[in-house]
């Protein structure tokens, strides 16, 4: 595929991923595989798109006081370990095995998109004067809603870290962000409000991608030119997806994108 084709694919994947809140690489890598790119080569390209998406969205989420750095770094120690192990092991996995894992990844991400609810934390009047953001020295914090301030504290950190380890391992093996696992784990298991979980995941997927990309670079698996073409498309694609998401019903958008992703997963499973 030529550079403009890769840029267009990066744009479409990031727009769809942003629209459905699943991240672009979860589309990009399976579609690259369906187009005949070997999965060992598609994984680093997917992670470059993940890193670009994380960087592009990170500033705004941080400015809104939604990103919890301490929580992100604590859970990321497990995710980065998983990513490094996944990337190291991936060279020993045959292409057919990686394609099967990609199909499973697409189906799991689609399921997460179809069933995600998100923890509904409520504002508490006694915290009305609290500034939005993380509280130093803790895994707690507060964020601001139009009707008040919502305090929160992460719990079940050990169990959540197991989920992060798995998400990281998938990222290292197949090149998707694992964000579709990380956000639900943070929200549903660790009790973190879904907006904070999503913003913190945006930060951590960048670190996961860096950890695995360093391994891929040392292994000589990164095609930087193809990656740059994808990044050139995926950054405006992420903006377009976010803009579309604001105009559409979030539930309808997420479910439509999840169904499309499920179709990609099924095609990957049944292809000869």
């Amino acid at each position, binding site marked *: 595929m030529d550079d403009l084709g890769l840029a267009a694919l990066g744009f479409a994947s990031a727009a769809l991923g942003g629209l459905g809140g699943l991240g672009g690489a979860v589309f990009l890598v399976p579609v690259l595989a369906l187009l005949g790119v070997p999965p060992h080569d598609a994984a680093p390209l997917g992670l470059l798109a993940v890193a670009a998406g994380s960087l592009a969205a990170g500033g705004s989420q941080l400015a809104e006081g939604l990103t919890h750095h301490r929580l992100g770094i604590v859970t990321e120690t497990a995710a980065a370990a998983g990513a490094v192990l996944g990337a190291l092991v991936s060279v020993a996995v045959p292409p057919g095995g990686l394609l099967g894992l990609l199909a499973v990844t697409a189906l799991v991400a689609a399921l997460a998109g179809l069933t995600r609810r998100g923890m509904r934390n409520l504002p508490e009047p006694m915290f009305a004067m609290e500034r939005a953001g993380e509280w130093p020295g803790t895994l707690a914090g507060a964020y601001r809603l139009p009707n008040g301030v919502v305090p929160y504290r992460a719990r079940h950190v050990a169990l959540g870290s197991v989920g992060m380890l798995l998400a990281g391992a998938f990222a290292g093996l197949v090149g998707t962000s694992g964000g579709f696992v990380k956000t639900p784990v943070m929200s549903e298991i660790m009790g973190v409000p879904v907006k904070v979980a999503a913003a913190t995941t945006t930060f951590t997927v960048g670190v996961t991608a860096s950890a695995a990309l360093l391994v891929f670079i040392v292994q000589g698996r990164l095609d930087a030119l193809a990656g740059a073409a994808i*990044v050139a498309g995926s950054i405006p694609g992420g903006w377009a997806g976010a803009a579309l998401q604001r105009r559409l019903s979030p539930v309808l958008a997420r479910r439509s994108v999840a169904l499309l992703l499920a179709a990609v997963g099924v095609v990957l499973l049944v292809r000869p």
Partner: protein
Amino acid sequence: VSDETAALVRALRLTGAAVFVLAVLTLTLPAEPARSVALAMAGLLVGTPLARVGALGLVWLRRGDRPFGLAALALLGIVLAGAVAAAVTGLTA
């Protein structure tokens, strides 16, 4: 938003813009300079999250928030160990 957070937000936005410009440049340049620019872009993408983790860890250590400062440094250690393991094993796809 604190001064430090505002500075981090500015840095992230500037780096994001730089990555986008470099990525678009690779589409317009001839092959060899394009490859160098693409490598610079990949370096920025890989290095920025790690620099962010390192900076946060140092700030927390300086302020006495020792457990989280050490967690940040441990995270960087894991990432570095992965690259070293890849070099030592010498496996390629």
